[in-house]
């Protein structure tokens, strides 16, 4: 029974750590499927986190914070689109620029608005998204196994966690069952096919970037107003890049990407858990090595040692009509 509790605790922590990864990875999925590589997930998420925390603090409403975060992330996505889609600029450079810019942006304005070094004031009570106890969770709590899992793993998260998990099947449906999805997948593979079909390539890419901004904004709000209690400098801590890795690991498909996010989050949860605790058979494993796992795995996948991941063919290439 104790083991089960341990496992449930780790899994619940996996879910919490995985949420921003899922949102960002799906955000990246929309943009990359449309042919725009997104190295800027990190920055968009971080910018969202800052705006969400600031607005939630000033208005007392996490929902307004969420809206602000989404608005800000969309704005950054549009800048991304202006650079990469309208001006055919380099997509990788744009992402790097966004990340560096935003890394300084939050702390600068945190200092200017709140006079605090590199963070917003702590959020408390109603300024944050609260954990939701699902119906019957308390009642079922004591039922062996099922009750433990229901109460400890499925129930008790904040609304944004559930949103993230709902986003995955929804994006699958959009991608494979709707007109928009068909065009989106086509534009990332062969934009000229879309162009001659009378559909605007740029229009499609901008639409994908709007969705990308919305999801990054939610991810940011999650970091600062749901998972955390306020914005801290560099609080995204490489999660945007990790999400990108998960997207590659998941071969640009919603289901496998979700699995990759959860795998990476699990590694993170375990890493925290085993610090200073010897493992059976292996002994002490420095947590740094567990931290490396997602990155090493991604490199192996990219190199084709573990399966093979081939991205959308037109991703990274600005669309210019050939003469």
């Amino acid at each position, binding site marked *: 029974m104790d083991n089960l509790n341990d496992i449930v605790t780790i899994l619940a922590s996996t879910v919490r750590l995985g949420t921003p990864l899922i949102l960002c990875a799906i955000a990246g999925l929309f943009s990359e499927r449309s042919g725009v590589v997104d190295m800027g997930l990190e920055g968009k998420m971080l910018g969202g986190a800052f705006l969400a925390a600031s607005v939630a603090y000033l208005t007392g409403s996490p929902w307004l914070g969420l809206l602000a975060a989404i608005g800000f992330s969309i704005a950054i996505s549009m800048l991304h689109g202006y650079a990469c889609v309208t001006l055919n600029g380099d997509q990788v450079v744009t992402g790097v620029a966004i990340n560096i810019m935003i890394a300084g942006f939050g702390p600068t304005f945190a200092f200017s608005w709140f006079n605090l070094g590199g963070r917003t004031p702590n959020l408390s009570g109603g300024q944050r998204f609260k954990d939701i106890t699902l119906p019957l969770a308390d009642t079922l709590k004591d039922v062996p196994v099922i009750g433990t899992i229901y109460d400890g793993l499925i129930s008790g998260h904040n609304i944004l966690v559930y949103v993230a998990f709902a986003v995955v099947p929804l994006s699958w449906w959009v991608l494979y069952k709707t007109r928009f999805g068909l065009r989106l997948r086509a534009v990332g593979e062969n934009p000229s096919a879309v162009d001659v079909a009378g559909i605007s390539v740029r229009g499609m890419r901008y639409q994908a970037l709007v969705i990308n901004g919305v999801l990054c904004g939610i991810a940011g709000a999650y970091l600062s107003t749901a998972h955390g209690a306020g914005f801290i400098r560099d609080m995204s801590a490489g999660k945007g890049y990790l999400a990108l*890795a998960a997207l590659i690991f998941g071969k640009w498909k919603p289901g496998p990407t979700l699995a990759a996010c959860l795998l990476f989050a699990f590694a993170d949860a375990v890493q925290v858990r085993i610090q200073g605790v010897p493992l059976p058979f292996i002994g002490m494993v420095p947590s*740094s090595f567990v931290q*490396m796992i997602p990155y090493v795995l*991604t490199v192996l996948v990219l190199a084709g040692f573990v399966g093979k991941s081939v991205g959308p063919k037109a991703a990274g290439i600005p669309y210019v009509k050939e003469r």
Partner: protein
Amino acid sequence: MASPASSKPGEIPGWIYNVILPILNLLAALVVSGILILLIGENPINALWVLIQGAFGYADNIGYTLYYATSLIFVGLGFAVAAHGGKFNIGGEGQGYIGGLGIGLACLYMGSTPWPIVMLVAIVGGAVCGGVWGLVPGYLAAKRGAHTVITTIMFNFIASALMTYLLVDVLIRPGQQNPESETFAVTSQLPQVRDILLNFGINIPPNPLNVSFVIALLCCVAVYYYIWRTRWGYELRAVGQNEKAAVYAGISPTMITIISMTISGALCGLMGLNVLMGDQHRIVLNFTAGLGFVGIAVALMGRNHPFGILLASLLFGALYQGGSQLSFDIPVLNRDLVVVIQGLVILFTGALENQFKPYLEWTYRRLTRQSVPQSTKEA
């Protein structure tokens, strides 16, 4: 082949793209930065003045500016070498970090040897360690088709985790809490310019500028000759510009990619010469502090040309140093703002580089009274 392309009549000359356009983009970045400063409620002109004074006003400020520039030259050159070969190396951060390990170990284990010898060994150590960190992504790209953009990022994180482990569990000075190594012996520290000047009776305030700046300048010269004056550089550029033509010419893109990524990593790996051997005198956590990424901006602004990289490094070095002064004089404009400005410079000079191009071309044609092609009239 160093001779610049002569331009055909009717074509826009190269200096328009290589000099005027970057300056325009830089100005645009500064204007946006000024707007941000206004939003914060300060006077941008005043801030700019403080920044310039802070970067160049006094001998020690210049020393700091050049100190930061030194690191940026190394990473900027590293990025440029890979870029000429058609590869995107955004792993300067990790390559610099791991290179620092090689440099640090050389310094730690050659305690009582005179510094020039330690420096030579450290250069080899840094270049080998950084080189390996570039070689692996290079190999995976050349042989397995793994895109360097993603693999080098992953290698940054792997480097970071590895160094954390080494500094926390292995190299840490006994009895210390801070994850940092023993201090290097005085003999294996690079002389700082200040100390050298003292020998001549010139006394300037403390600053970390050290002889690695000279190494950086030598690297600029070496990279210039490598890329434009040797047949290996010719092959590198051929692969980067047109891989099919390179294959036709009997050049192996596989080999070139592996070699150029290794050289790229090796150059980035020398960053620690400046930071560790010249200033910190021990291996510290995260000493690269994002410089690896800023090096990308430096290379982009400098058009992947060593001379341009030198200038861009001075600019970004000035931004760092002037930024510190700025936050000292006007606390609300802190170092984070400098990071934003750096981001804006990358955005305008890299991502949005084409923004002003059509207007610039149009203006040039107008000024030189060349006939505008009919299509632009009618379209």
